[in-house]
């Protein structure tokens, strides 16, 4: 019924698409196409790469120490010596930003990976098994999603206690439910596909069907979800740290730097603003990249 729709209207577009999508594209050629068509996504990917490299090679990029105090130069404004100024202990903010990137990026990636694994496994189980297992997992997801995420994170942090690992666990526990829901609905659709039916009829085992036939087809969605969930994990962590509930000193994440700078905000706003801007940039970059990836990997979702 929809196939005939808007034939004339989309004719021009069809011609364009037909010339581009020849057969199945490899992952790399897809990425190349995204880079060519979506300059913003390409620039974002580069920015993310720069952040990652800067975090890894932080010691080589700065001549200051990230922890040694220099009380003569407390709260000095941005200058050529200290590009982003110094903090209340006279430490170079750029340096602390580079080291803080390590924690902030880890906090974006590790819990998100964890929540993807949990969410994907539960989603697959829920969608494939159906029945009681499905009902149980989905009700649990409903409950998790009913919480305002900040408050849920606060309760879990309280339960687990401070520490980097616990921050990871908290963020993973806060985010798995939405992943599980999406993977479940995808699994339900894939389950009805002919090749899955066929595999089942010839007696292929459940595990093989799930991991060889269903999971790989969920991958594009998972990649997009991952890219879009990283910034939300970074935001949640920075909010927790801003309240003093997340990363604790001497570990320094950007959110925690913002928090540390709060009491000097009116005299030395750069203390909080510089790490805030860093958070904003990385969040924006991941969002752009995620949108770009969705456009090339998941055209249905775009059209829907």
């Amino acid at each position, binding site marked *: 019924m929809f196939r005939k729709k808007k034939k004339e209207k989309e004719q021009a577009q069809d011609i364009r698409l037909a010339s581009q999508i020849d057969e199945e594209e490899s992952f790399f050629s897809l990425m190349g196409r995204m880079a060519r068509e979506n300059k913003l996504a390409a620039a974002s990917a580069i920015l993310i790469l720069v952040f990652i490299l800067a975090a890894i090679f932080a010691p080589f990029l700065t001549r200051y120490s990230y922890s040694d105090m220099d009380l003569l130069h407390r709260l000095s404004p941005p200058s050529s010596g200290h590009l982003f100024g110094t903090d209340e202990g006279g430490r170079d903010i750029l340096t602390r930003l580079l080291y803080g990137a390590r924690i902030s990026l880890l906090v974006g990636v590790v819990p998100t990976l964890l929540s993807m694994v949990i969410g994907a496994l539960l989603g697959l189980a829920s969608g494939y098994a159906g029945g009681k297992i499905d009902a149980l997992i989905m009700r649990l997801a409903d*409950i998790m999603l*009913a919480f*305002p995420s*900040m408050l849920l994170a606060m309760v879990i942090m*309280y339960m687990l206690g401070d520490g980097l690992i616990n921050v990871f666990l908290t963020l993973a526990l806060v985010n798995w439910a939405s992943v599980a829901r999406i993977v479940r609905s995808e699994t339900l659709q894939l389950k009805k596909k002919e090749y899955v039916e066929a595999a089942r009829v010839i007696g292929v085992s459940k595990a093989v069907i799930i991991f060889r036939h269903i999971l790989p087809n969920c991958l594009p969605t998972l990649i997009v979800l991952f890219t879009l969930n990283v910034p939300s994990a970074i935001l949640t962590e920075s909010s927790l740290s801003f309240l003093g509930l997340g990363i604790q000193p001497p570990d320094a994440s950007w959110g925690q730097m913002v928090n540390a700078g709060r009491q000097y905000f009116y005299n030395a706003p750069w203390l909080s603003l510089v790490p805030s801007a860093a958070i904003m940039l990385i969040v924006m970059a991941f969002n752009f990249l995620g949108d770009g990836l969705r456009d090339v990997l998941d055209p249905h979702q775009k059209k829907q």
Partner: protein
Amino acid sequence: MVRNILSRLLQAVCVLLGVALLIFIMLRIVPGNPIATLMGEHADRAVIERMTAELGLDQPILRQFIRYLADALRGDFGTSYSLGKPVAALMGAAFGNTLKLAVLAALFAWILGITSGVIAAVRKNGLLDHLFMGASLLGVSMPVFMVAMLLQYVFAYHLHWLPIAGVSSWKGFILPAVALGWNSAGSVARLVRSTLLEILEEDYIDTARAKGRGQLGVLVLHALRNAMLPVITMMAVQFSSLLSGAVITESVFSINGIGRLAVQGISGRDIPLLQGTVLFSTLVVILGNFLADCLYSVLDPRVRKEG
């Protein structure tokens, strides 16, 4: 239709029960006796034991939970360990502020988001489109505390236009509400734009134009009503994230609200306070979702059940 609403209501109650149980369990599996932690190292063991028994903390978790629920239904959420007052009274005082803040922020976000989204869609690829979409991107990416601190710095500290903290007058709500609504405004604007652009491609838009409706008529009478459907769903989700953001905003602007009580609950290791505030906030979210569901079925005849 009525049956539909009732079944949704039942669902909401079940989720709420689940939420309550989950919070209860999570806060009870913290190692150590909370009373002992609270009273410090030198407290008398007999006193600790007496208080533990008094609060019923020595009983099985399920019994404690049922007792808590029964009390909560009567409006008794226990007594705050750290503030020494009934949690219900504390929340009652704070809830008004949080609700005002959240509703103002939501209004700000929805009005700004919907107008700019519609304008951007109508002027697709024009100057206003790029301007609004750029701004909305900033809106989506800026952490709440950054917006809050910037607004506070510029409009309160620097220009002295609005109070820096507190809500002693209505003016005190302006900056926190804008800071809180900023993110949502961005995402609403983006959603409205993309939905509207899709809907303007629909066949029934052609039908309306073929009838002789002008551009404005088509937009307002035919496109917007359909475009509002996904926006309503999003608004419900947004309301939940507004309550999350309220924790931050209340902290920056020193507003006595639910979010600040929750933070107090954590820093004071005050289980009744934390439990009460989280449960209450979640109740508000669930209620919001329920109302959004109802509104949706009023606006979309396809989900209504006949008879």
